[in-house]
């Protein structure tokens, strides 16, 4: 286990370092004069020089990279060009919307996908199976942002049960609160969960079917366990291995989906922040947000790798 863990930790750290180098290179070195890009074609040489000094662009690239990374690790980030606030503060504020949205979507995805996948597998080649598989095929083909618009059309425009977008905040004042906040996030979470659940339900179904063909399942049935007992005690535990991997891989999709859906529902999360930053040419915010999102994807993939090895001991044996 220790060799396996050591290898995985080394790969994880190397990936993070490479990602930071790539983000820095693309957003700080490739554009040439960053201050010129941020201020636009009409900027005067004086304003460009002033911004270069403010952002520390007069220092050598390696020194700037070192200062950026050490700042990120200590939570000391540069000030946003358009908000004049440290990017860490901006990101932390926006995460109050993005994290609950992603968590709610992941919860809905897991519940929906596991129930549908297990249901379809337990009715293999029957009407229920064909129905779930057809629905999931349609779910995969629907863009999450279009489904989000359809939800707004139904629940906000036609039925007028909820507002078409916006977020009241978690605090009780100004019309916000826990229930109001959750109410504003439920439609975006459903929109995100549909596509994810469609993919995961198919994986769950085929994983359960694969395990059901194994000899140990036949043995469990032969010793007298009912179909339901076999499913819950033996099949699901083993079928979860590929399901877990796909959930890890889907996390990157969930992150990008969240960015898109936040823009559909005008939610003040990370997605809105980064698009406002692009509109304002605020490369400081874009750089830190992209690095943060890539780091989250890498951390989740690392966690899934380790979890996967814990569930399936054969992996550790192969690797060590």
């Amino acid at each position, binding site marked *: 286990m220790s060799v396996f863990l050591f290898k995985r930790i080394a790969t994880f750290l190397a990936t993070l370092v490479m990602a930071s180098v790539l983000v820095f290179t693309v957003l700080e070195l490739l554009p040439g004069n960053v201050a010129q890009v941020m201020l636009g074609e009409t900027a005067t040489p004086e304003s460009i020089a002033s911004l270069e000094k403010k952002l520390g662009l007069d220092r050598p690239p390696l020194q700037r990279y070192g200062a950026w990374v050490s700042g990120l690790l200590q939570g000391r980030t540069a000030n946003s060009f358009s908000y004049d606030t440290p990017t860490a503060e901006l990101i932390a504020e926006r995460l109050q919307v993005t994290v609950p949205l992603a968590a709610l979507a992941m919860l809905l995805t897991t519940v929906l996908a596991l129930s549908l996948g297990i249901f379809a597998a337990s009715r293999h080649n029957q009407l229920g199976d064909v129905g779930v598989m057809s629905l999931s095929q349609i779910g995969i083909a629907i863009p999450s942002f279009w489904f989000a618009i359809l939800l*707004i059309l139904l629940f906000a425009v036609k039925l007028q049960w909820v507002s078409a977008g916006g977020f009241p905040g978690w605090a009780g004042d100004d019309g916000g609160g826990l229930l109001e906040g959750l109410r504003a996030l439920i439609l975006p979470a459903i929109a995100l969960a549909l596509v994810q659940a469609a993919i995961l339900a198919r994986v769950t179904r085929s994983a359960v079917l694969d395990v059901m063909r194994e000899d140990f399942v036949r043995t469990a049935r032969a010793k007298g366990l009912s179909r339901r007992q076999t499913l819950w005690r033996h099949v699901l535990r083993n079928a979860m291995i590929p399901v877990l991997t796909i959930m890890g891989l889907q996390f990157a999709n969930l992150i990008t989906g969240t960015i898109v859906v936040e823009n559909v529902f005008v939610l003040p999360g990370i997605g809105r922040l980064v698009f406002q930053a692009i509109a304002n040419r605020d490369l400081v915010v874009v750089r830190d947000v992209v690095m943060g999102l890539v780091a989250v994807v890498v951390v989740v993939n690392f966690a899934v790798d380790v979890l996967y090895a814990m569930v399936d001991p054969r992996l550790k044996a192969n690797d060590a």
Partner: protein
Amino acid sequence: MPSPPPMRPAAASPPGGPSRQRTGEAGSAASAGFVGRALRHPSFLAGAVLSALLVLAALVSLVWAPYPPAEIDIPNKLAAPSAAHWLGTDSLGRDIASQLLVGAQNSIVVGVIAVGIGLCVGVALGCLAAARRGWVEEVVMRAADFTFAFPALLSAIMLGAIYGPGLLTGIVAIGIFNIPVFARITRGAANAVWSREYVLASRAAGFGPWRITLDHVLPNIASVLIVQATISFATAILAEAALSYLGLGTQPPQPSWGRMLNEAQTMLFQAPMLAVYPGVAIALSVLGLNLMGDGLRDLLDPKLARRR
């Protein structure tokens, strides 16, 4: 964007023996058998019909559309469907049907180029990894893993922030994301071919790795790559629509289904159907390509079809 999904890879096992062994009558009999099985495969047929409609819409729009898609006609804005405007007009009086037809061109261009980038670079890297093994394989696969940390949307955000949004930004971002998808699948399938006896015979006959890759590996993994290319094409259409919806993809006046949805969202209360047509076009195109990809997988790898 959607990225798609790497979790739906094509089957990694190469089919049968070397394709070069199939010659003459045997080859045409195999083709006839394939066509016969394809015609009896309902989901492949449905997918092929939907995909053909997408291509047909794009081809027809090259020579004819009811109206120029960018032609503004304010007196006729938000017109209901009629004989003059089959699906009505948008807030600027532009014909919706014409925009949808010409928008199909956009989806196909993005799909072909983005999948082409992934296919060319990814297959070359995958073949290199399988042929060389050792540290070359390790470097290629670790680089592929690394690229997965950058979903197409994040690449598009970075490129859009520097070079400005545009069709090229979208294509490059989606293409980069496709490279590790094809590299992984190629390497897996090519490794299986490299372990076959006929490859061993070729090596014993003195043929080098490149000759073996061209003569044996590529012909035998072609079916796996065709299936993945179909599925990646669908993913590229979804990703392009998301990028255009966000303003990072296709720019006006070029029509795009994603941007049509963005514009329609501001008119939800006045003209809700404007938000329905482009979404249906995207969903049917993606559904068609996915069904065709799944069908091809069944048809090209019957062992897998029996398991499913």
